[in-house]
């Protein structure tokens, strides 16, 4: 625990130093944050914003045992590694390719669970109108561990020149009935508070409450530290590139 506190302190000091060099960037609806699963979202829940057109992000995240969608029933299994690539394929369509593999198990699980997430824009955020998106996760493939279809809306509110609040709410359900997924089944919602280079997240993912700290460095590299169910730590590191200049 002492080591954890020291690490967090070190990260915060490093971020403060970076901020003075203008190396950190504030998130916004135009440059939205990504969830632990790689798609644009808060922590585990999606938002109504999409990846910008032509932006490619790839990263890795860690989901601890008890919070993954695949129950591997292995004594040595500690959690799942998620490797993903997220792309703004069109201005109104986002695609995420994900590979989920076990961490800590000696058994052969093959390459892992491969899944494809599609998210489409219904409305762009206007003065009153929220950004609304429809999502279809993991519809092609064998098992559909992460299968869900949902509708989600997001609205940003500028509190002052350096602070922004983003609120999201949505509803998810399975459209393929016999899949084992329990993720995003029902109403979910999230709040993100962006202050300068720091973003704080809180969400209800239809089952539990999660919280997170999110920072974007050099406009390209994201660090996401999450506290799932306010019990277990999770995290993500990713990098993003602009394919359109």
């Amino acid at each position, binding site marked *: 625990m002492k080591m954890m506190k020291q690490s967090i302190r070190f990260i915060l000091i490093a971020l403060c130093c970076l901020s003075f060099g203008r190396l950190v960037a504030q998130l916004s609806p135009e440059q939205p944050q990504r969830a632990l699963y790689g798609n644009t979202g808060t922590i585990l829940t999606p938002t109504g914003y999409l990846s910008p057109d032509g932006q490619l992000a790839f990263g890795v995240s860690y989901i601890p045992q008890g919070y993954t969608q695949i129950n591997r029933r292995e004594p040595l299994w500690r959690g799942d590694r998620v490797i993903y690539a997220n792309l703004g394929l069109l201005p109104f369509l986002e695609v995420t390719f994900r590979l989920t593999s076990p961490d800590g198990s000696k058994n*052969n699980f093959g390459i892992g669970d491969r899944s494809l997430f599609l998210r489409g824009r219904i409305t762009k955020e206007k003065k009153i109108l929220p950004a609304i998106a429809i999502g279809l996760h993991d519809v092609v*493939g064998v098992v559909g561990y992460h299968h869900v279809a949902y509708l989600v809306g997001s609205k940003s509110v500028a509190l002052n020149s350096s602070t922004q609040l983003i609120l999201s709410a949505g509803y998810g359900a399975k459209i393929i009935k016999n899949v084992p997924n329990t993720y995003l089944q029902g109403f979910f919602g999230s709040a993100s508070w962006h202050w300068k280079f720091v973003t704080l997240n809180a969400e209800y993912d239809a089952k539990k409450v999660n919280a997170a700290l999110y920072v974007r460095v050099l406009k390209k590299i994201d660090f996401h530290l999450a506290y799932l169910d306010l019990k277990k730590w999770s995290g993500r590191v990713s990098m993003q590139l602009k394919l359109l200049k």
Partner: protein
Amino acid sequence: MIPKVDIKTLFILPLAVLLCSLPVGAQSLPTPYTPAQEEMTKQYRFGGLEDSLLTALKASGWLNIRVQSTADKLIIAFENRTYRFEARAIKALVKEVAPIIGNRYKTLALIVLNRNVPIMGVSLSLEAWNAFLHDAQAFPAFANSIHTTMSIHSDWQLLKNQPITQSGALRTEAYVDPQLRMGLGGYPKPVLVQVNLLPTANIYLWRGAQFKAQAIVPIFNQLPIPEDKLIRPGLIGINQYFRLPGATFLGLSAGYFTNYVYGAELELSKIMFNGRFIWRNKLGYTGYASFPKRLGLEKPVPGWQVSLLANLDYRSSLEYRLAKYDLVAKVEAGRYLYHQNAVKVSVVRQFQETDIGFFAQKSAQGANYGFQLSIPILSKKYGKPQRFQFRSSKSLPYTYTATQYVVEDYQSGNDLYLFLKKLNPSFIQNQLRNSLDW
């Protein structure tokens, strides 16, 4: 099962219609310039300016240069083997030419060549360019003056008999392409990787002709294919293509192709609606060939293993380009290698030099889907072309297939299709109009 359609009819009928629809002979097309205009062209032969222009273009490494002018238009045909990205090459050429010619012409028309065959044309207002040079706010007016087209007949008629400065023929281009293959999901190792290097020599022969010789050098191999551990021949063959009237291209290839195939291939592509639609037909007559001899999982034996030419493959595709997003949707059907009938559907977006897309295919064996990407690598600009030139590779392609039902196909070395994609008029227009990076 795919629907029971007579696939030969599906292929041969469109090919026959396409061939019959071609105008007979390029020379019979009327030239839009009247004799008086031709005379005016001669009158405006621009003496010293022409010399300085050609000298500058030659020094910059452009090939197959031809220059001609009318009263208010300067026309330049050129071939780029210096820049990785054709749009960047066009920008570089405009920036080079504009200061030399100053305000003498209103319009600059460029004809982009590949292997000395005209592919497409770009025209822009030099007045708008000069205004943009002095004021960045004038960029929208300049951007709107840029037009791209596959209909280059009138300008090409003026240029085609002009002397060629710095011919691109009989030049050799050498490069090393990387190749990445992966075997995913197997037991006990779920990820098997193979990395090869493909040293390649392209010899540009006469107009439209190219000889390509390639070797496959294994660098890292985990795939359980014994012959993949050996240095072996890659694609070795000759390709010739022609531009026919009506933005139609005919390509012929012969040699040792990829995927253990040798033989000959004919390709006919019709570009319609200024590149919005491309109708592409391929016909191949091939046999099996391998070096070294493949003996399943046994150690391969030195020497060639060759079967008779006995396989006829054919396919027809229609692609539509959504110009706003540089998005290409394609449907292809036909008979592929090993008598596999299949239907393929793909959607690919061109993000400038990076291509990312998805595909699905269905054959009698089963369905497959996945993604494909092509990433530009290494330098954006190469050295000036020499008789023998070494350049870096242009891109790294990778295709991921989700199931084992792969529709086997081969590449014949006909890279015209890639060129038509990179030089599609709407794609080039988007690159020139949407970027201030001039």
